[in-house]
């Protein structure tokens, strides 16, 4: 205690910043799809963030970003979910999500439901400022470059709509993937066209969604790539689910973080990544 007082005004963190190893405290929001369906994406995110020099914590009391409620027009439900997300995450330096659409929800949409609540609006704005999509965070904020990752084969990339249009994630994953030895990129026709997932849309309008993803699958297959990579579990589940329903086993869907963290061989071998 006495030491703390004697150091007051000298801001010890300056010394760290001078050495350019400013520590980044990151709160990882794993998202509900990763939590239930694909934990390996969460672990891959931790690995990458730590390699990039961050201290990562995963608050235990997290749930969902609130998109199902928001997109259904349930503003009150969205607010209820947002309250606790804000409380859980507002004190980190950065909040990172391995999903463009959940990141965009926090970055762009929370503020919409707090229009009439100035105090919460300010807190939501602060959270929006510190929130990032994983792949763009690694490149834009951490200037991270993966090292020593190898994967034989070729990949094609699906840009999720929220990542691509709302958050401008495009170059970042491609840049990092270009460092993976043995991995070749095959461009996807209509890469920025929606895959038909759309959260609740894909179950509400299952048949329209099916037509849309059917077309996406045609484009994906036409690349003859070995892997379909992307940054959003929702789109990947949708496209992979349609590929499998149509009996196409020749292409495997993986989250970009899984590849960059070197988890691909393990996953392809059929083991849980943790």
């Amino acid at each position, binding site marked *: 205690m006495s030491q703390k007082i004697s150091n007051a005004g000298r801001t010890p963190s300056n010394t760290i910043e001078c050495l350019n190893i400013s520590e980044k405290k990151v709160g990882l929001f794993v998202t509900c799809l990763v939590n239930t369906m694909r934990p390996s994406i969460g672990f891959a995110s931790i690995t990458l963030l730590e390699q990039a020099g961050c201290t990562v914590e995963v608050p235990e009391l997290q749930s969902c970003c609130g998109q199902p*409620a928001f997109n259904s*027009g*349930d503003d009150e439900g*969205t607010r209820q979910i947002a309250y*606790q997300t804000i409380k859980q995450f507002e004190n980190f330096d950065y909040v990172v999500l391995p999903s463009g659409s959940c990141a965009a929800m926090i970055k762009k949409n929370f503020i919409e439901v707090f229009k009439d609540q100035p105090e919460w609006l300010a807190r939501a704005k602060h959270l929006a400022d510190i929130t990032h999509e994983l792949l763009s965070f690694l490149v834009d904020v951490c200037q991270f470059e993966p090292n020593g990752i190898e994967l034989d084969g070729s990949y094609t990339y699906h840009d999720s*709509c929220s990542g691509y249009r709302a958050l401008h994630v495009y170059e970042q994953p491609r840049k990092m993937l270009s460092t993976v030895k043995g991995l070749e990129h095959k461009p996807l026709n209509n890469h920025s*066209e*929606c895959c038909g997932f759309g959260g609740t*849309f894909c179950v509400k309008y299952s048949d329209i969604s099916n037509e849309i*993803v059917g077309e996406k699958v045609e484009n994906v297959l036409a690349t003859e790539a070995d892997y379909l990579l992307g940054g959003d579990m929702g789109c990947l589940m949708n496209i992979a689910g349609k590929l499998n329903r149509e009996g196409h086993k020749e292409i495997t869907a993986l989250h970009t973080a899984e590849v960059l963290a070197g988890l691909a061989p393990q996953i392809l071998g059929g083991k849980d990544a943790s």
Partner: protein
Amino acid sequence: MRVNKPEDFYKNVSEALAQPDLKMIIRRTTDKAETKRAEAVANFPEFENARTQGQKVKDHTIKYMDHYLAEFEKNALAQGTIVHWASTGEEASKIVLDICRQHKAKKVTRSKSMLGEEIGLTHAFDNSEMERIETDLAEHIIQLAGDPPSHIVWPAMHRSREDVVKLFREFHADPTYSEEITDLVRSARRDLRNKFLTSDIGISGSNFLLADSGSSCTVTNEGNAELTITPPKVHIVTAGIEKLVPSMAHAVPLLRLLTRSATGAEITQYNTFHNGPKRPNDADGPEECHIVLVDNGRTKMLAEGMEAMLRCIRCGACMNHCVVYKHIGGHAYGSVYPGPMGSVLTPHLDSLEVANKQTHACTMNGRCEEVCPVNIPLPTLLRSLRAQSWDKKYEPLTNRFVVQSFAIMAKRPKLFQLLSSSGVIFMKVFSRKGWIKYMPFTSGWTRNRDLIEPESTTFMHQYKKIKNEKMKKAKKGGA
């Protein structure tokens, strides 16, 4: 004419998806429109500037709507135009029919106008003693076929060339037997030429109304608006009040945006500014000119915070780039305006109660907003309509129940984690070789796709385990 209703959206969608060639026919046009628009934008470096300018012009005019309407009326009257005001579509179409009847018209020619469709003019004429002649080529096609329009720029988009060949052979007096597009166009021209010259009244829409001159601008590629307007004795313009701009200089940036966004052309073949009836020294032109200014829900939109939608210049880019529109086509929406802009407009023209399902038929992918030349935040507007219909409880009860239950869980993270873990166990029961083909309560998903098998436990479960082990080790090491 068989017209779908907006409230039957689910049924309309099923019917549309069941049509084998519809998707392909739509794609032919929309894909081309997308490519050409992208080229036009790439060749027009000032596009973003023009867009901001266009938005500003529209916002300004909308803000001072009353002022510009008064100015427009004053200047139109000074030109000798007779100005009418209609607060509803019905009123507007009655005004038009009354004018026609006063002149004992037998034949009226019409150049394409979506507002005409909106106010029910086509129906009104078909139920009258007068003959309605559509002069736009695509409108001519759908008139022969008895279809409503399926797109705001290409109303006959849902008809293939083969359909057109058949229709022309059946209905044209002197049909062509060739299937070449130029021959088909010639056939339509032969059929329409005489009708242009013998029409009693010409009716057009308007792309822009210029307040400072009281004139109206039409944009076409076929010159049919000019032929609709000039030969008959009487010309009637019907226009929505949002078509107003202060002056020609304000219309120009919008014109540049409109053509590029609609067809990818730098400019359309015919851009005509009409200035009231024929003056003593004019070589031709109508002797009498009317303009019907239509509100039909527009001022209400202004009052309800939907003013951004009044910027719309009807270019159709949002539907050309909409994945949902591309698969279901325009008719499924069951209203005059389909696609993203239609899903925002129809609840105001009809009611949210009948047209709320369309507001949900969107993946929120944002492409429409990205291409809209006047920056209309279509997804945000759609979502605000969803919020209204949520408050009014228009959603099917099952949807409400699912969303609400999820929200109740999500705001209690401990419960949420517990249920996620149970969810994983439940899913495991139905998994075979890494995939779930069927599972109760997920038919929306598994009807068309497989579901990947989840890992053995949730992330949180695994993470806590690892963290505890680490802590134990650290304690041991420390001790």
